[in-house]
C-alpha cells in the first residue's frame, strides 16, 4: 500500500537519452536499413564475429580429430566429414571473416570519422554492400543444407568440378556475391578518400590507416572481378561439362590456378594491408610518439598493393609452370619483403624512446609485429624455388599462412577492435582481463602454429586425415595450443560483452589519440561532426593532454599552430 506524500519533492523527470548513433533511432528496421556508416560497420563487425565463432568451432573440431593418427578420434568425423570441415573452416575464415573484417567492419566505422566527414561518399551503396555480404553468407549456409563441399577453400579444379558434394554451386554463388560486396566497399572508400578529405588533410596528412584502406580498396576493385568470372566459369563447367579448366574435358587446370591466384594472392594483401594500417595507429597512439617514417609507411602500402598483383605465380611453382616463369615470380616475391620490412622497421623506430602504454590494443600491436615477422620470414622459404619443392603442400605452408592471415591480420583486427571499442560502444572494457586474454591468445597461437612449422619441415602433408604416428606429439601440442587460444578468445568475448552493461563510461579520447575520431564523443553522434573540423598533424602528440575532469585526453588546439592560424592548413 502506498500513500501520497505531498511534502516530498517530486522526483526529477528522467534525463533524456544521450543522442548518439546508437540511440538516434530505434527498432530493428532502423538498423536493418540504416545508412549510417557507423551502424553498418557495427553490423559487419557482429556478422564477422559470428562467422569467426563458427569457423573457430570447425578449427577446434579439426584439431581435436588430429589428436590421434587414426580415424574418428571424434566419433562421426569420417574422412569425408574431415574434408568438409577443413574446407568450411578455410572458406568461412577467408571470405566471411578476414577479408571483410578490417575494411568493411572497422573501416566503415572509422574511415568517415577520421576524415571528419558525415558519412561515406555513397551511403546507399554501403548498405547494399552489407546486404550483399549477408546474401553471400546465406548462400554459404545454403551450401551446407544442400550437402556441403569438400574442395578446400581454393575450389581447385577438378575437385570442384567432379566432387559429388552438392554444395559446391551454392558456395560458389555465395563467394561470387561476396565479391560484389567487396568491390562496392572498395569503390566507396576510394571515392570517399578522394573527395571527402577535410580542409587541411592533404594526402600526406592522412592517418596511415586510411592509406592502408585506400591501397586495399584499389586491390578490391581491380582483383576481385577476376575471382568473380573464375567462379562463374566453374559453375558453367560443372553444369554443362564443357572443358574450360577440367583436363578430362579438354580444359586447362593451370589456367584455373592462374586466375584463382591472380585474385587470391592480392586478397592476402586485402587482408594484411588494412591490418598494417591499424598497427600504425596502435603503435603511434599507445607509444604517444609521432609515427616514424610516415611517407615510407604510406608509400610501402601502395608498393605492396602493386607488387601484390605480380606474384601470384609463387603459388604454382609445382604446377608445371616454366622454370623461367618460376624464377621471375620468385624474384618478385622476394621484392615484396622490402616494403613489408620498411613498415616493420618504422614501427620499431616509433617505439624507440616512446612513452609506451601497454594497453590491450598495444599488446595486440606488438603481437602483430612479432607474428608478422615470423610469418613474413617463413614466406621467404616458400618463395625460394628450391625449398618450396620440399615444403609445398605441407604443414609448413599451413603454419606460414596462419601466421600471416590469423597471427597478423586477425590479431591486428582484434587489436583495432579494442582500440576503437570505447568509441564504438561508449564503454571501457576491463584492461586486466584484456591483457590476460591477449597473452593467452599469443601463447596459444604460437604453440598451435609454430609446432606446425616443425611438422611441415619434417614432411607432414597438409589436409591429411590419417598420419604417421611419429607426428602425433606435434599434433597433440598444436591441438593443446588451439585450446589455449580458444580460451583467450572466449575470455575476450566475455569481458567485451560484460563491458556493454557494466563498463565504465568511455571518454572521447581514452588513449591519447590525435586523429579526428578521438575528437568527437564516444559513441559519436549521428552526424559525427556538426561542422567539418580543421585538421592538424594527426601524429603530433605534443598537443595532447590528460584531463582529470574528462578522465581522458584532450587536444590542446591552442598549442597547435596549424589549428590556430585560419587558412594556414591549406586546401587539398
Amino acid at each position, binding site marked *: 500500500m502506498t500513500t501520497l506524500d505531498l511534502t516530498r519533492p517530486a522526483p526529477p523527470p528522467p534525463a533524456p537519452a544521450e543522442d548518439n548513433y546508437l540511440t538516434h533511432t530505434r527498432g530493428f528496421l532502423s538498423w536493418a536499413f540504416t545508412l549510417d556508416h557507423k551502424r553498418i560497420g557495427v553490423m559487419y563487425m557482429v556478422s564477422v564475429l559470428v562467422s569467426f565463432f563458427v569457423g573457430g568451432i570447425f578449427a577446434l573440431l579439426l584439431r581435436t580429430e588430429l589428436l590421434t593418427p587414426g580415424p574418428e578420434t571424434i566419433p562421426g568425423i569420417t574422412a569425408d566429414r574431415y574434408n568438409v570441415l577443413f574446407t568450411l573452416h578455410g572458406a568461412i575464415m577467408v571470405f566471411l571473416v578476414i577479408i571483410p573484417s578490417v575494411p568493411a567492419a572497422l573501416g566503415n566505422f572509422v574511415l568517415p570519422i577520421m576524415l571528419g566527414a*558525415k558519412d561515406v*561518399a555513397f*551511403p546507399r551503396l554501403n548498405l547494399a554492400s552489407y546486404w550483399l555480404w549477408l546474401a553471400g553468407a546465406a548462400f554459404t549456409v545454403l551450401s551446407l543444407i544442400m550437402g556441403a563441399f569438400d574442395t578446400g577453400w581454393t575450389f581447385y579444379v577438378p575437385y570442384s568440378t567432379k566432387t559429388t558434394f552438392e554444395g559446391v554451386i551454392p558456395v560458389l554463388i555465395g563467394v561470387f556475391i561476396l565479391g560484389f560486396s567487396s568491390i562496392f566497399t572498395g569503390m566507396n572508400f576510394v571515392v570517399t578518400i578522394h573527395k571527402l578529405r577535410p580542409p587541411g588533410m592533404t594526402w600526406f596528412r592522412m592517418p596511415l590507416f586510411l592509406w592502408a584502406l585506400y591501397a586495399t580498396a584499389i586491390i578490391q576493385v581491380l582483383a576481385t572481378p577476376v575471382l568473380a568470372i573464375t567462379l562463374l566459369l566453374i559453375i558453367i563447367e560443372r553444369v554443362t561439362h564443357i572443358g574450360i579448366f577440367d583436363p578430362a574435358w*579438354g580444359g586447362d587446370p593451370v589456367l584455373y590456378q592462374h586466375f584463382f591466384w591472380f585474385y587470391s594472392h592480392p586478397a592476402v594483401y586485402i587482408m594484411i594491408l588494412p591490418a598494417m594500417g591499424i598497427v600504425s595507429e596502435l603503435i603511434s597512439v599507445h607509444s604517444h610518439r609521432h609515427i616514424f617514417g610516415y611517407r615510407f609507411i604510406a608509400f610501402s602500402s601502395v608498393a605492396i598493393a602493386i607488387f601484390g598483383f605480380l606474384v601470384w605465380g609463387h603459388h604454382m611453382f609445382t604446377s608445371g609452370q616454366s622454370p623461367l616463369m618460376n624464377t621471375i615470380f620468385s624474384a618478385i616475391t622476394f621484392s615484396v619483403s622490402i616494403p613489408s620490412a620498411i613498415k616493420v622497421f618504422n614501427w620499431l623506430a616509433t617505439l624507440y624512446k616512446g612513452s609506451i602504454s601497454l594497453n590491450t590494443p598495444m599488446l595486440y600491436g606488438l603481437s602483430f609485429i612479432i607474428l608478422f615477422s615470423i610469418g613474413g620470414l617463413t614466406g621467404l622459404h616458400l618463395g625460394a624455388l628450391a625449398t618450396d619443392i620440399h615444403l609445398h603442400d605441407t604443414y609448413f605452408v599451413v603454419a606460414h599462412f596462419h601466421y600471416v592471415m590469423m597471427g597478423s591480420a586477425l590479431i591486428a583486427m582484434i587489436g583495432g577492435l579494442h582500440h576503437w571499442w570505447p568509441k564504438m560502444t561508449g564503454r571501457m572494457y576491463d584492461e586486466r582481463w584484456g591483457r590476460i586474454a591477449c597473452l593467452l591468445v599469443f601463447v596459444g597461437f604460437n604453440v598451435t602454429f609454430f609446432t606446425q612449422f616443425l611438422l611441415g619441415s619434417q614432411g607432414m602433408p597438409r589436409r591429411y586425415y590419417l598420419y604417421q604416428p611419429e607426428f602425433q606429439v606435434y599434433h597433440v601440442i598444436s591441438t593443446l595450443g588451439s585450446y589455449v587460444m580458444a580460451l583467450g578468445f572466449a575470455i575476450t568475448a566475455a569481458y567485451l560483452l560484460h563491458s556493454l552493461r557494466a563498463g565504465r563510461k568511455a571518454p572521447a579520447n581514452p588513449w591519447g589519440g590525435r586523429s579526428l575520431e578521438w575528437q568527437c564523443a564516444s559513441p559519436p553522434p549521428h552526424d559525427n561532426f556538426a561542422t567539418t573540423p580543421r585538421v592538424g598533424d594527426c601524429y603530433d602528440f605534443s598537443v595532447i593532454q590528460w584531463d582529470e575532469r574528462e578522465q581522458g585526453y584532450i587536444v590542446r588546439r591552442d598549442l597547435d599552430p596549424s589549428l590556430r592560424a585560419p587558412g594556414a592548413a591549406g586546401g587539398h
Partner: protein
Amino acid sequence: MDPIDASRRSDDGETPPVPRGRTSWRLPAASEPFVDPARRLAALRLGMGVFLASLAVLFGSTALAFLVVRFSPEGARQWRGIALPWELVLSTALLVASSIACESGLRAIRAGDRGILVLRLRQCVGLALAFIVVQAWCWSGLLRGVDVISAFRGDAEAAPLVAAWMFVVLTALHAAHVVGGLLPMMSIARRAKEGRYTAAAHDGVLLLRNYWHFLGAIWLAIILLLVATMPAWGGGTGPT
C-alpha cells in the same frame, strides 16, 4: 551508383536534420556527406570511373579465358566447326544506335530540352531491349544443335560445346550488364518525364551516358575478338 536525391537538399545547401525516432520500412534519410553539389557530382563521376575500371578487369579476364580455351588443343579442334552468327551485325547496330540516342539525350538536356531527353531515353530503352532479344535469338541458334542431355551426362564429344558456350559466356556477360543498365535507365527516363533534370543538374543522365558508352566500347572489343578468333561468319544455326 548511389541515387542521392538533390531535391532533398535545402536551399541554403545544408542538409536538413534527420528526424529521430522509430523508422518505417523505407530507407531513412542519409547524412548527406556532400554539401557542395559540384563536389558531389565529381564524386559520382569518380565512383563511376572506378566501377568501370573494375568492369574492364572483369571483361578483360573473361576475354583472356576465352582466348586460352580457344587456342587449347581441344578448343582448336572444336572451333573449326562453329561460325560467327550473322545476328551479331544486327545487335551491334542496335547497341550503337542506343549509344547515339543516349548521347543525343544528354546534349538535349544540356540545352534545356526535357522533351527530347525523354524521347531519346525511351528510344534507348527500346533499342537495348531489342539488343537483348537479338542476342537471345543468336544464343538459341548457336546452341540449337547441341545435345544438352548428353552434355549433362559429360559426353564431350556430343557437339562443339566449348566453342558455343564460351561464345555465350562472353556475350551473355555483356548482356547481363546491359540488363543491369536498363533498370537505372528506366528510372532515369521516369525522372526525366517528371521534370527532375535541368540543364544545370542532370547527374543521372551524365552517369548513364558514361556507363552506356563503356558498354558500347566493350561490345566492339568483343566483336573484334570474335572476328579475330572465329573462322567465318555463318548462319548462327549451331555447329556446321
